[in-house]
Structures are given as structure tokens and as C-alpha cells.
């Protein structure tokens, strides 16, 4: 049974067994990945995966089940399992959403590019081999390239419901990654770089290989610095990564469950006045652009922080219902998961400073170009404690590469301590449009 048939079949079986409130998500993904080592293709992976997830709503109680076997009998079993799972959920006053018309032309979101489909193993291998060759030419201290791959995928999703929702979307993308190892005496340093887009760029491999070596080379002689308080500049790659660990504080369900420090703080000043955080689901080419969310609710742009003022929580149907509100169109699910909240594309406007310019503002600062792990970052308390690598700047001059240090602070303090915004976003396909940030008040341990 294929993708289209499965979505039709699930509604017909639901009707047959008397289930009136059902929605289903069918997902199909095709992937191709090539990995390169020592001038040769080392591994090729190609796959097609298909899965169907159903939600049964039974007098305010939801139950979920999913299957990767798509035949009539298994789909019926999944529906019955979801129905029996719903018996045990505590009820919430919710109803399955009715179909709403989509106001935005999905083609304008630029989620799908036909030319990527033409790329085959040879094309991907060529890009990988060019990446490797470029990396090898860049620095004689390169001793290994343990990670080098090029991949592409197409994803198709279809959401249907017994209440008339019938929505499909299709997206594709291509990406490559390169992880290098440089050695000099006892020193070892790796550099990791990736590239991802929805459009093919035959030159991307060379740039990727060179940059992956440069990143290791720049930090190869890094040393620690003494513990102190110091301003930090997070570059345009690190700022979205660090901030993204804490955005779940903006979820209505997090506040309801006591896992958000923003609970009860709507309309309060939580950030510098220069900061507006916009969730924009309609950005052309955005990594998380959507016309409908995963419950079939039309999406719309929403400001979470408006000139420093906390202005909106994000909701799906159930979390909204708990506060007597409508969904804000932020439901997320995979075929094998329940409903949760998500952000779409998060946007902080760029400022006027180049990265070097930002580093010239304070007398002394640490430019962070690499975050090591996330385990010390607590999305509930907002605490930040994380190993970083980068460069020490004094009077606008780069004076030494730095590793073996941690930075510590709190996300909610960070929002109030931003002193400058960079003038660009990182160039890869992403759902985070957040520039480099100059932030005061971090403790550095070294």
C-alpha cells in the first residue's frame, strides 16, 4: 500500500469500526547518503521509509498508535490500539479541529526543488571527493578526515482527519558534512563544518572541505584562559544553537506544567528593548516553513518578544484549550509520536556590526565559535554551563585561540544583557535566523 492509499484507507477503516474522531499522519522519506574516505566511496546508504500514525479522540481523551506495516489489518489494529490507549488518558475539553482553508500558497515557501531529484550516487560522490581533496590541500597537519558525507532526502507528509482535513506537503534538501583532525606534536584538534540547502551548489564541496580544515587549524594551538567575568560574542552559528536550547520556555504547555520560568510573565520586559523575536512560518526557504501545523491549524507569524516585552506563548489545540484559548498553530508530531509544541522559523533582526566589529566593542571579550555539548544547559531553570572554544579579543585584536574553558550564566539574564547584534545569519538551511550576539555577564572558567 502506498502513501496516498494509506491515508485514504485509514479514514475508511475508522468509519467501518465506528470511530468518529480520528486524524492520521502518513510520512514517506527517501534518503541517499554517500560517505567518503581516502579518495574512495566508503559507504552508500539508500532508503525509503514509510509510517502511519493515528490519533483517536474519545470524549476528550486521546490515544496514539503507529505502524510501519501498511496493510488493512495492521492499520485497523493501530486504530483499535489508539482507541484502547485513549481509555486511560485523563480527559481535556478538546475537539478534533475542523478543516480550515489555507491562506498561503505553499509554492511560495520554496520547500521543494525538482532539480535535487536528478542527483545520483555519482553526483554526491563527486561532491564528497572534491570536499576531501580540498581539505587535504589546505593544511599539511591534517591527519584524518573521520567524518565526510553528502546526503539528500525527500520527505512527503499527509495529514487527514475524519473532520475533513486533507493536507499534503513535500520538501527536499541536500547536505554535506566534513569533520577533520589536525595534529601538531601532542596537540590534536578537529574542525567540523556542514552545508545544507534546498538547492544544488556544485562548488559547495570545495568550500566545505577548506573551511573544515581552517576551523581546526585556527584552534590547534588553543589554550585555556584564567577564570573571570567577561563579555562574550556568540558567532552566528553558536547564537542560534545556544538560544534554541531554551525556546521551549515559550510553550504554553511548559508553563502549564511548571517547566517554564516565563509562567505568569506575559507583557513583562524580559529582554533588551532592541530585541524582537518573531516566529515566522511563511519565510520562503525557511527550514521550518509551513502553511498548516500538524493538527491542520493554519499557521501565522507571531511575535514572542516584541521590543523586549514577552508577548505570546505558543499553543497546540490541547494546551490552548486548557487556558480557554485557540491553538496558535504550533502543534508538532511525527507519525510515531504524540502531539507536542514546536516553533517554526524564529527570527531576530540583524544589527549593524560585523563579527569583528562586535568583538571591538568591549575592551576584552571571548568570541565563541564552537559549543561543546549541551548537557550543562538546563532548559527549565535557564542555567547555561557549557564548554566552548574560540578566540580572546583585546582592544579589537584577536590575541589567542582559546579552548578548555566553560561559560556560565542564565538564558533569561542573557536576554537582558545583549549589547550588540551581528549583521548576518549563518548561511545554511535553518529554521533559526539569529545573528551573532554580544552578551555581557558570563562567567568564564578556565
Amino acid at each position: 500500500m502506498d502513501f496516498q492509499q494509506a491515508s485514504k484507507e485509514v479514514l475508511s477503516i475508522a468509519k467501518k469500526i465506528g470511530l468518529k474522531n480520528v486524524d492520521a499522519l502518513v510520512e514517506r522519506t527517501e534518503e541517499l547518503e554517500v560517505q567518503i574516505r581516502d579518495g574512495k566511496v566508503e559507504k552508500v546508504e539508500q532508503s525509503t521509509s514509510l509510517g502511519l500514525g493515528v490519533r483517536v479522540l474519545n470524549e476528550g481523551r486521546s490515544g496514539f498508535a503507529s505502524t510501519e506495516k501498511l496493510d488493512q489489518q495492521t492499520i485497523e489494529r493501530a486504530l483499535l490500539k489508539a482507541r484502547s490507549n485513549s481509555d486511560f488518558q485523563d480527559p481535556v475539553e478538546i475537539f478534533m479541529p475542523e478543516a480550515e482553508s489555507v491562506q498561503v500558497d505553499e509554492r511560495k515557501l520554496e520547500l521543494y526543488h525538482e532539480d535535487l531529484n536528478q542527483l545520483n550516487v555519482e553526483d554526491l560522490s563527486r561532491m564528497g571527493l572534491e570536499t576531501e581533496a580540498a581539505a587535504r590541500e589546505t593544511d599539511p597537519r591534517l591527519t584524518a578526515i573521520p567524518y565526510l558525507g553528502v546526503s539528500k532526502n525527500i520527505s512527503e507528509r499527509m495529514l487527514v482527519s475524519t473532520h475533513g482535513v486533507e493536507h499534503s506537503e513535500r520538501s527536499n534538501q541536500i547536505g554535506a558534512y566534513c569533520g577533520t583532525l589536525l595534529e601538531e606534536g601532542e596537540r590534536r584538534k578537529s574542525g567540523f563544518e556542514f552545508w545544507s540547502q534546498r538547492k544544488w551548489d556544485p562548488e559547495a564541496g570545495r568550500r566545505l572541505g577548506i573551511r573544515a580544515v581552517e576551523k581546526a587549524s585556527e584552534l590547534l594551538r588553543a589554550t585555556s584562559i584564567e577564570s573571570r567575568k567577561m563579555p562574550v560574542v556568540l558567532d552566528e552559528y553558536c547564537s542560534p544553537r545556544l538560544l534554541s536550547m531554551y525556546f521551549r520556555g515559550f510553550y504554553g504547555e511548559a508553563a502549564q506544567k511548571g517547566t517554564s520560568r516565563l509562567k505568569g510573565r506575559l507583557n513583562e520586559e524580559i529582554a533588551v528593548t532592541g530585541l524582537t523575536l518573531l516566529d515566522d512560518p511563511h519565510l520562503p526557504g525557511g527550514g521550518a516553513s509551513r502553511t498548516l501545523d500538524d493538527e491542520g491549524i493554519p499557521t501565522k507569524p507571531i511575535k514572542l518578544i516584541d521590543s523586549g516585552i514577552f508577548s505570546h506563548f505558543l499553543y497546540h489545540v490541547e494546551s490552548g484549550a486548557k487556558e480557554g484559548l485557540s491553538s496558535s498553530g504550533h502543534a508538532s508530531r511525527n507519525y510515531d509520536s504524540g502531539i507536542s509544541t514546536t516553533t517554526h522559523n524564529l527570527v531576530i533582526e540583524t544589527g549593524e556590526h560585523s563579527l569583528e566589529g562586535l568583538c571591538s566593542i568591549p575592551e576584552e571579550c571571548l568570541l565563541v565559535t564552537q559549543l561543546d555539548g549541551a548537557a550543562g544547559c538546563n532548559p527549565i531553570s535557564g542555567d547555561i554551563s557549557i564548554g566552548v572554544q574560540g578566540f580572546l579579543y583585546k582592544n579589537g585584536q584577536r590575541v589567542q585561540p582559546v579552548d578548555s574553558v566553560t561559560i556560565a550564566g542564565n538564558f533569561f539574564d542573557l536576554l537582558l544583557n545583549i549589547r550588540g547584534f551581528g549583521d548576518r545569519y549563518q548561511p545554511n538551511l535553518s529554521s533559526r535566523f539569529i545573528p551573532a550576539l554580544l552578551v555581557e555577564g558570563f562567567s568564564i572558567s578556565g
Partner: protein
Amino acid sequence: MIEQETLSKILEHGITKGADFAEVFVEDSLTSSFNLIDQKIDQIQSSNSFGIGIRLLYGDEAYYGYSSDPDEANLIKLTGNLSESGHAGSSESLRPLQQQPIEDIHHVAVNPESVSGRERVDLLRKFDENTRSQSEAIQQVNANMHEKQRKVLIANSEGLLVEDSRDYARMRLSAIAEKGDGPQSAAESPGVLGGYEFFREIDVEKISREAAESALLMADAGYIEGGTMPVVLGNGFGGVIFHEACGHPLETEAIRKNASPFCGKLGERVAQPVLTAIDDGTLSQRWGSLNIDDEGLPSKRTVLIENGVLKSYLSDRIGAKQVEMERTGSARRESYKFAPVSRMRNTFIDNGKDSFDDMIASVDFGLFAKKMGGGSVNPATGEFNFAVQEGYAIRKGKIAEPVRGATLIGKGFEVLPRISMIGNDLELAAGMCGASSGWVPTTVGQPSLKIDSILVGGR
């Protein structure tokens, strides 16, 4: 799960197209998850995962594909697509499939399917009530039961045909305490390779108390002043540091790429003589144990470091060939969607002879990291980072005030020789380990131990 004739045809197709080795991995898994939060049963989810992974090896090149469609023609076509990408090698003859029995060292006493949803819901509520009863400052409790029944079949062109069934049961309890300085969370997550009996025997009171106490202590705690200092690591999940900082770089997946500080160091001293470290997939009912690995080889006990000397890496088929060592039964994968690579199972530092009190008494100022949170490592450089879930300052040889927000960072091969004292209170703890073949259940473990100096991130 799939006809033997179909398996044979796939393997034959791969070999006749020039592959040196062909393998089929079939998986049919049932997963169920019951979740309680905010004193309510929140989401209940059941999943059936099914698919077939096909791997062809041409010398050092690997071709992997998978599909959830068991139709024979589809699988033959997939094999053909993989073969066309490969370069013809020196194909060896195909051996007929012969079913091999496995020694089932892990037993399921209570089949999860025989247990009602009501019993699960009642258990979750018991955890919630017990945890909240510890203090009014406990603001939130999240209790989750996760169960998985994983049936796998492995067939390869060397004639191997073997099936295994793996049942997993795991409880995760998270408590959030608030005492006016922001919410602080702590979690306990025990798990076994076994059936529902795990939940019937679980010590609700102890797990609830430990999660609540840890969160309450951290809600009261101040921040530690960062810097390089001696650290005493608590037993059990403290072993996550060895797992990340030394275990991953000892996998042939890192060694074969010359991307580990332990390359070429077999037989050399890498730690003080007090340290012996083991990776053992045969421990009964342990979360990281296996009857057979995901290439069909019986699981083993592998001594990694013995009295400070590096003895072995952990290998899969490709790694063993390239590093020129025996396979250690360590090939693992999250599901049919991943090709197998060498991974850890139950990895631990063995008991030593030092007493915990002597370790604390030997520190003038430092950190006692009683419970660790998660962490990660760059295997190529050995650079690691870890969060401390529950920590205390050590002052003048005594455990002093609780501290929060601490992280430990360093390089594995540099920290290993600085482990100077090892206790005799070995405990193991369940965790999930992520790497190139996905997330697999692993156990970490150690007795209490002292690291003479390590960088502690704080404020």
C-alpha cells in the same frame, strides 16, 4: 518475520552481483509509552516498527539500504540498486542458510502484553504521589514507563541465520523543585533487558525519594566557583565519563579512521595500575546486554584496560578487519534503519580498594559530583563535557554545601592517568548512547573514584 527463501534470494542476488559479503537484518518491534505529568495521564503511545536492512560489502566499501516493504520483488530491486553502486570485488561462494540456536541468557518472567493499561496507570500515579509527598516544594513530577519488544533476524552470505528477541523495560522519573530561586530538576531512570516484572519489583519509594531529594537539594544550592580542582565522582552513573571520554575512542569505528587518541596504543599504559575497565554484554538482564550482537555474533565480555594497560578495542565486522583484531560481538544499531557499527554494551570501571571516606578526606578544596547528568565527547580529540546533576563542594576533607550548575570538561586520555583512587562500591546505571548507528541502550558504571585535577565550569 520473512520467508527463508526470500532471504536466500536477496543474499544470492548481492553475491552474484560481486559483493564479498551480504547480510539481511529484519526487525519487528513493538514499543509502548505511558506518560504522566501534572498529575494526569498525558499521552499513551504504541508503535510497531518493521523493516528490512540489506548490507553489501565490497572490500572496504559498504552499501546499505532499508525498506519497510517486505515484498520480495521490492527487496531484490533494492539489493540490485545497492549492487549497481558497488565496484565488483572478489566474490566468495555463497553458503546455504543454516538456522543457529542462541543461548538465551536473558529471561522475560512477565510478558508485557499480559498486563493491563490500568496497572501501568496505577504505578505511574504511585510514583507521582510518593514523589510529591517528599516536600511541598516539589512542584512537578513527570513519570514515564517505556517498554519495547524487539524481534530481530540476521542472515548473511556465510550461511548464518539467527533470531533473537529483546525485551526492554525502563522507568524515568523526573522531579522539579522550586524554592524561590527558579525550578531545579532531577531524574532517576533505571532500566533492564527484561519484561514487565521489572515494574512489579521496582522500589517506588526509593526512586521517588532519590529524585525528590536531589531536586530539593539543588533548589537550595548555590553555584560553585569554577576552576581546575580535584573531583570525587560518585558511583553508578558517574561512569558516563569513562563511557564518553574513553569508551567511544576505543570503538574500532574511531580507531579504523585514525581518529582516536588510543590508536596504536594496545599494550601501552594509559592509566594508573589501580584502573581496570570492562565492557561486558553478557551480564544477566542488564540494560546494555545482548544474546547476540547485530551482526549475529554471541555477545562477549571484553577487558578494555587491565591494571592501567590498554588490552582491547571494541569491534564490529568492518572495524575488526581494518584494525586486524578479533570481533568482540559489539556491532549494534538502533533499528533496521542503521548499518551496524562497534558500540559499547555494559561498560564500567571495576572495583578498586580505596574507601570513599579516604577519597573525600584527601581533598582540601574540590567537588563531589554525586550524580552526573549527560555529556558528550569528540572521539577524535577526546574532548568531553559533562553536567553534574547533584554536586557538593568538598572543603578541608569534608563534604560541604550543595552546588549546582557545574560542568566537567577535559580530554579523556589526559584525565585517565589522573584517576588516582578507586573505591569498591561498583554500581551500574542505564543510559541511552547516541552515535552513527543511532541510539542504543547501554549501561555505564563505576565505583566512587577520585580524579586529581579536572576543569570544573561554574560561576
